[in-house]
Protein backbone atom coordinates (compact mmCIF):
# COMPACT_ATOMS: atom_id res chain seq x y z
CA UNK A 1 0.00 0.00 0.00
CA UNK A 2 3.06 2.24 -0.27
CA UNK A 3 1.58 5.19 -2.08
CA UNK A 4 4.91 6.88 -2.63
CA UNK A 5 4.57 9.05 -5.71
CA UNK A 6 7.89 9.25 -7.52
CA UNK A 7 8.72 12.90 -7.97
CA UNK A 8 12.07 12.61 -9.74
CA UNK A 9 11.80 15.50 -12.21
CA UNK A 10 10.36 13.74 -15.23
CA UNK A 11 10.07 15.62 -18.52
CA UNK A 12 7.13 18.01 -18.79
CA UNK A 13 4.02 16.18 -19.93
CA UNK A 14 1.52 18.67 -21.36
CA UNK A 15 -1.70 17.35 -22.87
CA UNK A 16 -1.89 18.63 -26.45
CA UNK A 17 -4.67 21.25 -26.82
CA UNK A 18 -5.15 23.65 -29.73
CA UNK A 19 -5.40 27.29 -28.57
CA UNK A 20 -8.79 28.88 -29.29
CA UNK A 21 -8.21 31.14 -32.38
CA UNK A 22 -9.62 34.21 -30.63
CA UNK A 23 -6.73 33.97 -28.12
CA UNK A 24 -4.05 33.34 -30.75
CA UNK A 25 -3.62 37.10 -31.31
CA UNK A 26 -2.99 37.86 -27.61
CA UNK A 27 0.52 39.34 -27.25
CA UNK A 28 2.69 40.89 -24.58
CA UNK A 29 3.23 40.74 -20.82
CA UNK A 30 1.37 42.98 -18.35
CA UNK A 31 2.34 43.60 -14.72
CA UNK A 32 -0.01 45.16 -12.14
CA UNK A 33 1.76 47.94 -10.21
CA UNK A 34 0.46 47.75 -6.64
CA UNK A 35 0.37 50.78 -4.38
CA UNK A 36 -1.65 51.82 -1.36
CA UNK A 37 -1.64 55.13 0.48
CA UNK A 38 1.41 56.36 -1.36
CA UNK A 39 3.51 53.25 -0.70
CA UNK A 40 4.54 51.20 -3.74
CA UNK A 41 4.76 47.50 -2.95
CA UNK A 42 8.29 46.38 -4.00
CA UNK A 43 6.83 43.19 -5.50
CA UNK A 44 5.61 45.38 -8.40
CA UNK A 45 9.19 46.12 -9.51
CA UNK A 46 10.28 42.52 -8.85
CA UNK A 47 7.55 41.44 -11.30
CA UNK A 48 8.50 44.14 -13.83
CA UNK A 49 12.02 42.67 -13.70
CA UNK A 50 10.72 39.12 -14.28
CA UNK A 51 8.20 40.38 -16.87
CA UNK A 52 11.08 41.92 -18.83
CA UNK A 53 12.73 38.51 -19.03
CA UNK A 54 9.51 36.76 -20.12
CA UNK A 55 8.70 39.49 -22.68
CA UNK A 56 12.17 39.12 -24.20
CA UNK A 57 11.63 35.34 -24.61
CA UNK A 58 8.25 36.04 -26.20
CA UNK A 59 9.74 38.87 -28.32
CA UNK A 60 6.83 40.98 -27.14
CA UNK A 61 6.33 44.19 -25.15
CA UNK A 62 6.23 44.55 -21.36
CA UNK A 63 3.54 46.90 -20.03
CA UNK A 64 2.89 48.14 -16.50
CA UNK A 65 -0.72 48.66 -15.36
CA UNK A 66 -1.23 51.65 -13.08
CA UNK A 67 -4.63 52.39 -11.54
CA UNK A 68 -5.36 55.25 -9.15
CA UNK A 69 -6.80 58.66 -8.45
CA UNK A 70 -5.78 61.45 -10.84
CA UNK A 71 -2.55 63.22 -9.88
CA UNK A 72 1.21 63.33 -10.27
CA UNK A 73 1.65 60.27 -8.02
CA UNK A 74 0.23 57.84 -10.58
CA UNK A 75 2.22 59.45 -13.41
CA UNK A 76 5.39 59.02 -11.31
CA UNK A 77 4.46 55.33 -10.94
CA UNK A 78 4.38 54.97 -14.72
CA UNK A 79 7.87 56.48 -14.97
CA UNK A 80 9.15 54.15 -12.23
CA UNK A 81 7.68 51.15 -14.07
CA UNK A 82 9.54 52.22 -17.21
CA UNK A 83 12.78 52.88 -15.24
CA UNK A 84 12.56 49.28 -13.91
CA UNK A 85 12.16 47.80 -17.40
CA UNK A 86 8.67 48.32 -18.84
CA UNK A 87 8.27 49.38 -22.50
CA UNK A 88 4.99 51.17 -21.81
CA UNK A 89 2.31 51.73 -19.17
CA UNK A 90 -1.47 51.50 -19.30
CA UNK A 91 -2.76 54.24 -16.99
CA UNK A 92 -6.29 54.57 -15.61
CA UNK A 93 -6.87 57.70 -13.52
CA UNK A 94 -10.22 57.99 -11.79
CA UNK A 95 -11.29 59.15 -8.30
CA UNK A 96 -13.20 55.85 -8.00
CA UNK A 97 -9.82 54.09 -8.05
CA UNK A 98 -8.37 56.17 -5.17
CA UNK A 99 -8.34 53.30 -2.59
CA UNK A 100 -8.18 49.64 -3.46
CA UNK A 101 -11.69 48.16 -3.78
CA UNK A 102 -12.40 44.87 -5.53
CA UNK A 103 -15.29 45.95 -7.74
CA UNK A 104 -13.77 49.00 -9.54
CA UNK A 105 -10.26 47.47 -9.75
CA UNK A 106 -11.66 44.24 -11.26
CA UNK A 107 -13.63 46.31 -13.82
CA UNK A 108 -10.51 48.32 -14.64
CA UNK A 109 -8.31 45.25 -15.12
CA UNK A 110 -10.81 43.32 -17.24
CA UNK A 111 -11.41 46.44 -19.34
CA UNK A 112 -7.66 46.83 -20.01
CA UNK A 113 -7.17 43.10 -20.74
CA UNK A 114 -10.08 42.97 -23.20
CA UNK A 115 -8.76 46.13 -24.91
CA UNK A 116 -5.00 45.42 -25.07
CA UNK A 117 -5.16 41.56 -25.03
CA UNK A 118 -1.91 40.57 -23.20
CA UNK A 119 -0.94 36.87 -23.24
CA UNK A 120 0.58 36.99 -19.72
CA UNK A 121 -0.73 38.99 -16.72
CA UNK A 122 1.27 39.06 -13.47
CA UNK A 123 0.25 40.39 -10.03
CA UNK A 124 1.95 40.27 -6.62
CA UNK A 125 0.63 37.58 -4.22
CA UNK A 126 -0.26 40.20 -1.62
CA UNK A 127 -3.63 40.58 0.11
CA UNK A 128 -4.51 43.12 -2.64
CA UNK A 129 -3.01 41.11 -5.52
CA UNK A 130 -4.69 37.84 -4.50
CA UNK A 131 -8.07 39.52 -3.99
CA UNK A 132 -7.86 41.15 -7.44
CA UNK A 133 -6.34 38.24 -9.40
CA UNK A 134 -9.07 35.79 -8.26
CA UNK A 135 -11.87 38.10 -9.38
CA UNK A 136 -10.22 39.08 -12.68
CA UNK A 137 -9.43 35.46 -13.62
CA UNK A 138 -12.99 34.33 -12.91
CA UNK A 139 -14.49 37.31 -14.77
CA UNK A 140 -12.28 36.56 -17.81
CA UNK A 141 -12.84 32.78 -17.32
CA UNK A 142 -9.08 32.24 -17.66
CA UNK A 143 -6.54 30.18 -15.70
CA UNK A 144 -4.66 31.63 -12.72
CA UNK A 145 -1.75 30.06 -10.84
CA UNK A 146 -1.26 31.59 -7.41
CA UNK A 147 1.80 32.13 -5.20
CA UNK A 148 4.30 31.13 -7.89
CA UNK A 149 7.96 30.94 -6.98
CA UNK A 150 9.15 30.43 -10.58
CA UNK A 151 8.04 31.64 -14.05
CA UNK A 152 9.35 30.73 -17.48
CA UNK A 153 8.21 30.58 -21.11
CA UNK A 154 8.02 27.48 -23.29
CA UNK A 155 8.94 29.23 -26.54
CA UNK A 156 7.60 26.27 -28.59
CA UNK A 157 4.01 27.33 -27.87
CA UNK A 158 4.48 30.65 -26.00
CA UNK A 159 2.97 29.01 -22.89
CA UNK A 160 3.78 30.29 -19.41
CA UNK A 161 5.34 27.67 -17.08
CA UNK A 162 4.41 28.65 -13.52
CA UNK A 163 5.99 26.61 -10.73
CA UNK A 164 4.80 26.80 -7.15
CA UNK A 165 4.94 24.89 -3.85
CA UNK A 166 2.15 22.48 -3.06
CA UNK A 167 1.20 20.26 -0.10
CA UNK A 168 2.37 22.90 2.32
CA UNK A 169 5.68 23.48 0.59
CA UNK A 170 7.01 19.93 0.76
CA UNK A 171 6.60 19.59 -3.03
CA UNK A 172 6.79 21.79 -6.14
CA UNK A 173 4.64 21.58 -9.25
CA UNK A 174 4.70 23.28 -12.67
CA UNK A 175 1.33 24.42 -13.96
CA UNK A 176 0.42 25.42 -17.52
CA UNK A 177 -2.65 27.22 -18.86
CA UNK A 178 -3.84 25.35 -21.90
CA UNK A 179 -6.62 27.03 -23.78
CA UNK A 180 -7.33 30.46 -22.37
CA UNK A 181 -5.58 33.86 -22.35
CA UNK A 182 -4.23 35.84 -20.62
CA UNK A 183 -2.18 33.34 -18.65
CA UNK A 184 -2.41 34.78 -15.13
CA UNK A 185 -0.07 34.25 -12.20
CA UNK A 186 0.53 35.84 -8.80
CA UNK A 187 4.03 35.78 -7.33
CA UNK A 188 5.06 35.98 -3.66
CA UNK A 189 7.00 39.09 -2.59
CA UNK A 190 10.77 38.76 -2.23
CA UNK A 191 10.89 35.75 -4.59
CA UNK A 192 11.96 37.44 -7.82
CA UNK A 193 15.15 39.57 -7.80
CA UNK A 194 14.77 43.36 -7.79
CA UNK A 195 15.76 44.73 -11.22
CA UNK A 196 18.16 47.66 -11.59
CA UNK A 197 16.51 51.09 -11.78
CA UNK A 198 17.65 52.89 -14.95
CA UNK A 199 16.44 56.49 -15.14
CA UNK A 200 17.69 56.70 -18.72
CA UNK A 201 14.91 54.31 -19.93
CA UNK A 202 11.95 55.89 -21.72
CA UNK A 203 8.54 54.50 -22.74
CA UNK A 204 5.05 55.59 -23.67
CA UNK A 205 2.00 55.90 -21.41
CA UNK A 206 -1.44 54.97 -22.77
CA UNK A 207 -4.42 56.33 -20.83
CA UNK A 208 -7.74 54.53 -20.76
CA UNK A 209 -11.06 55.43 -19.17
CA UNK A 210 -12.52 53.34 -16.34
CA UNK A 211 -16.17 53.88 -17.31
CA UNK A 212 -17.60 53.44 -13.78
CA UNK A 213 -19.20 56.02 -11.46
CA UNK A 214 -18.81 56.04 -7.66
CA UNK A 215 -22.56 55.32 -7.29
CA UNK A 216 -22.14 52.02 -9.12
CA UNK A 217 -19.57 50.93 -6.49
CA UNK A 218 -21.27 49.16 -3.57
CA UNK A 219 -18.41 48.91 -1.10
CA UNK A 220 -17.17 52.18 0.48
CA UNK A 221 -13.91 52.77 2.33
CA UNK A 222 -14.64 54.03 5.85
CA UNK A 223 -11.10 54.25 7.24
CA UNK A 224 -7.50 53.04 6.93
CA UNK A 225 -5.32 52.30 9.97
CA UNK A 226 -1.61 51.99 9.02
CA UNK A 227 0.31 49.25 10.86
CA UNK A 228 2.83 51.65 12.36
CA UNK A 229 0.02 53.22 14.40
CA UNK A 230 -1.64 49.88 15.12
CA UNK A 231 -1.21 49.21 18.82
CA UNK A 232 -0.93 45.42 18.70
CA UNK A 233 2.30 43.86 17.35
CA UNK A 234 1.84 42.78 13.71
CA UNK A 235 4.19 39.79 13.79
CA UNK A 236 2.45 37.90 10.99
CA UNK A 237 3.23 40.67 8.49
CA UNK A 238 6.61 41.89 9.79
CA UNK A 239 9.66 41.76 7.46
CA UNK A 240 12.16 41.86 10.33
CA UNK A 241 11.69 39.94 13.59
CA UNK A 242 13.93 39.60 16.61
CA UNK A 243 12.72 36.88 18.97
CA UNK A 244 13.76 35.98 22.50
CA UNK A 245 13.48 32.72 24.41
CA UNK A 246 14.19 31.15 27.77
CA UNK A 247 17.92 31.55 27.06
CA UNK A 248 17.59 35.24 27.99
CA UNK A 249 17.08 33.95 31.54
CA UNK A 250 15.31 37.08 32.89
CA UNK A 251 12.45 39.32 31.70
CA UNK A 252 14.66 42.43 32.01
CA UNK A 253 16.98 40.97 29.38
CA UNK A 254 14.20 41.42 26.83
CA UNK A 255 15.05 45.15 26.90
CA UNK A 256 18.23 44.55 24.85
CA UNK A 257 15.97 42.73 22.37
CA UNK A 258 13.63 45.74 22.09
CA UNK A 259 16.71 47.99 21.57
CA UNK A 260 17.81 45.90 18.58
CA UNK A 261 14.23 45.85 17.28
CA UNK A 262 14.04 49.64 17.38
CA UNK A 263 17.27 49.98 15.35
CA UNK A 264 16.01 47.49 12.74
CA UNK A 265 12.40 48.67 12.75
CA UNK A 266 11.64 45.04 13.62
CA UNK A 267 8.83 43.39 15.59
CA UNK A 268 9.72 41.55 18.81
CA UNK A 269 8.63 37.90 18.98
CA UNK A 270 9.08 35.27 21.66
CA UNK A 271 9.15 31.52 22.09
CA UNK A 272 6.45 29.70 24.09
CA UNK A 273 8.47 29.25 27.29
CA UNK A 274 9.21 33.01 27.42
CA UNK A 275 5.49 33.80 27.00
CA UNK A 276 4.63 30.94 29.39
CA UNK A 277 6.91 32.54 31.99
CA UNK A 278 5.03 35.82 31.54
CA UNK A 279 8.11 37.78 30.25
CA UNK A 280 6.22 39.08 27.18
CA UNK A 281 2.56 39.28 26.17
CA UNK A 282 1.03 36.26 24.43
CA UNK A 283 0.53 38.27 21.20
CA UNK A 284 4.29 38.02 20.60
CA UNK A 285 4.37 34.19 20.65
CA UNK A 286 5.78 32.60 17.48
CA UNK A 287 5.15 28.94 16.85
CA UNK A 288 2.63 26.12 16.74
CA UNK A 289 0.25 27.67 19.22
CA UNK A 290 1.32 31.22 18.34
CA UNK A 291 1.84 32.96 15.02
CA UNK A 292 3.41 31.67 11.81
CA UNK A 293 5.82 34.23 10.38
CA UNK A 294 7.68 34.55 7.07
CA UNK A 295 10.00 37.54 7.64
CA UNK A 296 13.03 38.48 5.55
CA UNK A 297 15.28 38.23 8.61
CA UNK A 298 14.59 36.34 11.86
CA UNK A 299 17.06 36.76 14.70
CA UNK A 300 16.48 34.13 17.43
CA UNK A 301 18.18 34.99 20.74
CA UNK A 302 18.32 32.36 23.48
CA UNK A 303 15.86 30.11 21.64
CA UNK A 304 16.67 26.40 21.62
CA UNK A 305 14.55 25.71 18.53
CA UNK A 306 11.93 23.37 19.96
CA UNK A 307 9.65 21.72 17.41
CA UNK A 308 6.72 23.89 18.45
CA UNK A 309 8.74 27.03 17.73
CA UNK A 310 10.36 25.77 14.55
CA UNK A 311 7.09 25.21 12.70
CA UNK A 312 6.17 28.89 13.26
CA UNK A 313 9.34 30.51 11.85
CA UNK A 314 11.06 27.97 9.60
CA UNK A 315 9.69 29.86 6.55
CA UNK A 316 11.89 32.94 7.25
CA UNK A 317 14.28 33.84 4.41
CA UNK A 318 17.33 34.21 6.66
CA UNK A 319 17.61 32.91 10.25
CA UNK A 320 20.34 34.04 12.67
CA UNK A 321 20.59 32.02 15.89
CA UNK A 322 22.23 33.43 19.02
CA UNK A 323 22.71 30.66 21.56
CA UNK A 324 25.39 29.49 23.98
CA UNK A 325 24.77 25.84 22.95
CA UNK A 326 26.31 25.11 19.56
CA UNK A 327 24.33 21.86 19.42
CA UNK A 328 20.93 23.47 20.11
CA UNK A 329 18.27 22.15 17.66
CA UNK A 330 17.91 25.64 16.15
CA UNK A 331 21.38 25.28 14.63
CA UNK A 332 19.99 22.64 12.28
CA UNK A 333 17.74 25.10 10.48
CA UNK A 334 19.48 28.49 10.85
CA UNK A 335 21.75 30.13 8.30
CA UNK A 336 24.13 31.87 10.70
CA UNK A 337 24.97 31.39 14.38
CA UNK A 338 26.54 33.53 17.09
CA UNK A 339 27.68 31.11 19.78
CA UNK A 340 27.69 32.83 23.14
CA UNK A 341 25.54 34.50 25.78
CA UNK A 342 22.71 36.27 23.96
CA UNK A 343 22.45 38.93 26.66
CA UNK A 344 26.03 40.05 25.90
CA UNK A 345 25.87 39.61 22.12
CA UNK A 346 22.61 41.49 21.50
CA UNK A 347 23.89 44.97 22.57
CA UNK A 348 27.00 44.46 20.40
CA UNK A 349 24.80 43.43 17.47
CA UNK A 350 22.57 46.50 17.99
CA UNK A 351 25.66 48.76 17.87
CA UNK A 352 27.00 47.00 14.78
CA UNK A 353 23.68 47.41 12.95
CA UNK A 354 23.27 51.06 14.08
CA UNK A 355 26.73 51.97 12.77
CA UNK A 356 26.29 49.99 9.58
CA UNK A 357 22.93 51.67 8.80
CA UNK A 358 24.29 55.13 9.59
CA UNK A 359 27.31 54.52 7.33
CA UNK A 360 25.13 53.17 4.50
CA UNK A 361 22.80 56.17 4.81
CA UNK A 362 25.68 58.64 4.78
CA UNK A 363 27.04 56.95 1.65
CA UNK A 364 23.56 57.17 0.09
CA UNK A 365 23.18 60.94 0.83
CA UNK A 366 26.71 61.61 -0.38
CA UNK A 367 26.07 59.68 -3.58
CA UNK A 368 22.89 61.81 -4.30
CA UNK A 369 21.25 58.53 -5.38
Amino acid at each position, binding site marked *: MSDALDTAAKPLKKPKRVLDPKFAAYRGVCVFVEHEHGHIHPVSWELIGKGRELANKLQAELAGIVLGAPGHEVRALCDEAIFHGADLCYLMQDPVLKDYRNQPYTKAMTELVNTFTPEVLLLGATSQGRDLAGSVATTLLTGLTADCTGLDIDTSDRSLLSSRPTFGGSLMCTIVNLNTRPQMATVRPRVMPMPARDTARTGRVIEHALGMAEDDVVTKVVDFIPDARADRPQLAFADFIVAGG*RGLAKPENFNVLFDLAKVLGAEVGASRPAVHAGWVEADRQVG*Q*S*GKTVRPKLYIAAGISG*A*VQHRVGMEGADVIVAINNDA*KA*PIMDFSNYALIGNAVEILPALTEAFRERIAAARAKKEAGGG
Partner: protein
Amino acid sequence: MNAPVELPAINVEEKLFQNRYRVDAGRPHIRVIDPAVCGRCDPKPCVVCCPAGCWRIEEDGAIDLVVDGCLECGTCRIVCEPKNVDWNYPRGGFGILFKFG
Protein backbone atom coordinates in the same frame (compact mmCIF):
# COMPACT_ATOMS: atom_id res chain seq x y z
CA MET B 1 27.14 -3.56 39.10
CA ASN B 2 26.32 -1.40 36.12
CA ALA B 3 29.38 -0.31 34.20
CA PRO B 4 29.48 3.49 33.62
CA VAL B 5 27.45 4.02 30.55
CA GLU B 6 28.36 6.51 27.85
CA LEU B 7 25.17 6.44 25.83
CA PRO B 8 24.96 9.36 23.40
CA ALA B 9 23.17 12.56 24.43
CA ILE B 10 20.04 12.56 22.29
CA ASN B 11 18.10 15.59 21.15
CA VAL B 12 14.55 14.32 21.57
CA GLU B 13 13.24 17.47 19.86
CA GLU B 14 14.29 16.11 16.46
CA LYS B 15 12.24 12.97 17.11
CA LEU B 16 9.16 14.90 18.28
CA PHE B 17 9.33 17.05 15.13
CA GLN B 18 8.31 13.98 13.11
CA ASN B 19 5.12 13.50 15.16
CA ARG B 20 1.69 14.95 14.51
CA TYR B 21 0.23 17.09 17.29
CA ARG B 22 -2.83 19.26 17.70
CA VAL B 23 -1.71 21.55 20.54
CA ASP B 24 -4.56 22.78 22.76
CA ALA B 25 -2.98 26.24 23.20
CA GLY B 26 -3.46 27.67 26.67
CA ARG B 27 -4.90 24.46 28.14
CA PRO B 28 -1.93 22.31 29.31
CA HIS B 29 -3.30 18.88 30.38
CA ILE B 30 -0.63 18.18 33.00
CA ARG B 31 0.20 20.49 35.91
CA VAL B 32 2.54 20.47 38.88
CA ILE B 33 0.37 20.63 42.01
CA ASP B 34 2.91 22.30 44.34
CA PRO B 35 6.19 23.56 42.79
CA ALA B 36 7.80 23.72 46.25
CA VAL B 37 7.51 19.93 46.51
CA CYS B 38 9.46 19.63 43.25
CA GLY B 39 12.10 21.99 44.61
CA ARG B 40 12.77 19.57 47.47
CA CYS B 41 12.69 16.46 45.26
CA ASP B 42 16.07 15.03 44.31
CA PRO B 43 16.79 13.23 42.00
CA LYS B 44 13.80 14.14 39.87
CA PRO B 45 12.68 10.87 38.15
CA CYS B 46 10.18 12.72 35.95
CA VAL B 47 13.02 14.56 34.19
CA VAL B 48 14.87 11.31 33.38
CA CYS B 49 11.91 9.03 32.66
CA CYS B 50 9.76 11.33 30.47
CA PRO B 51 10.16 9.96 26.91
CA ALA B 52 9.38 13.40 25.41
CA GLY B 53 11.64 15.50 27.64
CA CYS B 54 8.67 17.65 28.80
CA TRP B 55 10.08 17.93 32.31
CA ARG B 56 13.19 20.19 32.53
CA ILE B 57 15.15 21.60 35.44
CA GLU B 58 15.72 25.37 35.26
CA GLU B 59 19.07 26.93 36.18
CA ASP B 60 17.56 27.91 39.54
CA GLY B 61 16.50 24.31 40.21
CA ALA B 62 12.80 24.87 39.63
CA ILE B 63 10.86 22.44 37.43
CA ASP B 64 9.71 23.70 34.01
CA LEU B 65 6.95 21.64 32.35
CA VAL B 66 6.02 22.17 28.70
CA VAL B 67 3.46 19.59 27.57
CA ASP B 68 3.25 20.52 23.87
CA GLY B 69 5.35 17.45 22.93
CA CYS B 70 3.74 15.10 25.49
CA LEU B 71 3.14 11.47 24.36
CA GLU B 72 0.46 10.95 27.04
CA CYS B 73 2.12 7.77 28.42
CA GLY B 74 1.44 8.53 32.13
CA THR B 75 5.04 7.88 33.31
CA CYS B 76 5.45 11.21 35.18
CA ARG B 77 2.29 10.55 37.22
CA ILE B 78 3.49 7.08 38.24
CA VAL B 79 7.19 7.76 38.97
CA CYS B 80 6.45 10.89 41.03
CA GLU B 81 6.78 9.58 44.59
CA PRO B 82 5.15 12.60 46.31
CA LYS B 83 2.25 12.26 43.80
CA ASN B 84 2.65 15.95 42.92
CA VAL B 85 1.36 15.67 39.33
CA ASP B 86 -2.19 16.68 38.30
CA TRP B 87 -2.37 14.39 35.25
CA ASN B 88 -5.25 14.41 32.73
CA TYR B 89 -5.81 13.64 29.09
CA PRO B 90 -5.94 16.65 26.72
CA ARG B 91 -9.40 17.63 25.45
CA GLY B 92 -10.86 15.24 22.89
CA GLY B 93 -9.02 15.37 19.54
CA PHE B 94 -6.10 17.39 20.95
CA GLY B 95 -2.58 16.38 21.95
CA ILE B 96 -0.53 13.66 20.26
CA LEU B 97 -2.19 12.09 17.19
CA PHE B 98 -0.22 8.96 16.23
CA LYS B 99 -0.03 8.44 12.47
CA PHE B 100 1.13 4.83 12.96
CA GLY B 101 1.15 4.08 16.71
